[in-house]
């Protein structure tokens, strides 16, 4: 009698194990990678470019590049770092091509109508809070988004990876392909600028 093979659910596997499975051609593993990282990657890119359509295109491009090159992934590196590195590279390249250094919280720079500005403006959604807390949180969140949008793209990427994605300095240095000292400097300056921009709000 054949012995039933017990396989753990994909959600319980580590990134490395899911990637190893995807390398054998298992479509569910590809979908699991997407489920785990589509929101973080899309959010990072959206906060960088502040245009939903562009963010969607860049996030798609990121995943297609990553998933089509899984055989080149080396398990000694953290998979998410590799993924964010590709997302960051594509986003920075896009911003350089478009020469968008800073963006406005009120809408994308190329928004010419009220509707398009509203469609590209950032709405910060709060979780499980009283109406007053929600209002305060929304205000602070919106103010933070606005302040982040005003940073240089390099600062923006570093500060988002540090404080939203909770990455270590070493990981950030690997993701943005910059020396560790430069990353620390960028984060320090970004924090300084954020503090200054948010001084009145807080």
């Amino acid at each position, binding site marked *: 009698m054949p012995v039933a*093979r017990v*396989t753990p659910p*994909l959600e319980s596997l580590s990134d490395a194990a899911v990637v190893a*499975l995807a*390398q*054998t*051609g*298992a*479509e*569910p*593993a*590809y*979908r699991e990678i*997407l*489920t785990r990282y*589509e*929101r*973080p990657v*899309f*959010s990072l890119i*959206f*906060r960088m470019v502040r245009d939903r359509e562009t*963010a*969607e295109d860049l*996030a*798609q491009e990121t*995943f*297609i590049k990553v*998933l*089509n090159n899984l055989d080149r992934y080396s398990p000694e590196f953290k998979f998410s770092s590799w993924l964010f590195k590709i997302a960051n590279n594509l986003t920075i390249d896009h911003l350089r091509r478009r020469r968008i250094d800073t963006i406005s919280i009120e809408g994308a720079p190329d928004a010419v109508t009220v509707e398009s500005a509203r469609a590209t403006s950032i709405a*910060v*959604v*709060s*979780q499980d809070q009283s109406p007053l807390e929600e209002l305060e*949180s929304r205000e*602070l*969140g919106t103010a*933070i*988004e606005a302040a982040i949008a005003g940073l240089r793209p390099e600062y923006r990427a570093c*500060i988002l990876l*540090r*404080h*939203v994605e*909770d990455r*270590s300095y070493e990981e950030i240095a690997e993701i943005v392909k910059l020396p560790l000292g430069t990353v620390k400097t960028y984060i320090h300056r970004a*924090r300084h600028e*954020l*503090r200054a921009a*948010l001084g009145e709000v*807080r």
Partner: protein
Amino acid sequence: MTDDYSDEEFAPIAAAMKRLPYFEPPSHFADSVIARVNIAQPARVAVARESYPVRHRAAPLQHESAPQMARTAAYFPRSLPARIAAVALLASLSVTMSAVALVAMFQMDLFVFVARVFGEGTIAFLASLAADVGSAAAGTVAGSAATAGTASGLAVIGSFAAGAIAATAGLRAAASINRKAA
């Protein structure tokens, strides 16, 4: 990591940044990506799907074994009469071969055995029948009889005869079934 929060002025901002929500990509995002990804070779996919059948759970086993079933079915006749005839022929051959094997194994004299069972008259009848069988068939059978011995030769003749009778009976039965069905 502690240096981030040593800055008292920045600590509330850092905490607020941690609480910033993720933005949702469109609902079709994953499908759009998957549609443009080259998923690895089908053979490897089959192995992996067996391990993690997340999609297309309806009938993975049937799907996987269909080619095997098709290959096996190719060896069997499709119509019922042909199947009955084939089974009859195989059955008679297997019985004969088993008998030949037993005779060879125990070095029994088949003539003695048959004579004891059916009597001397039967032996004489079989011998004359063998002599009367057509030269082509008899030649072939005689060749094997000459090498394997008289007993084995008779066994082979018997198997062909039994096979032919069984096949005829099978075909007639099948024909009558078809007539009834029509």
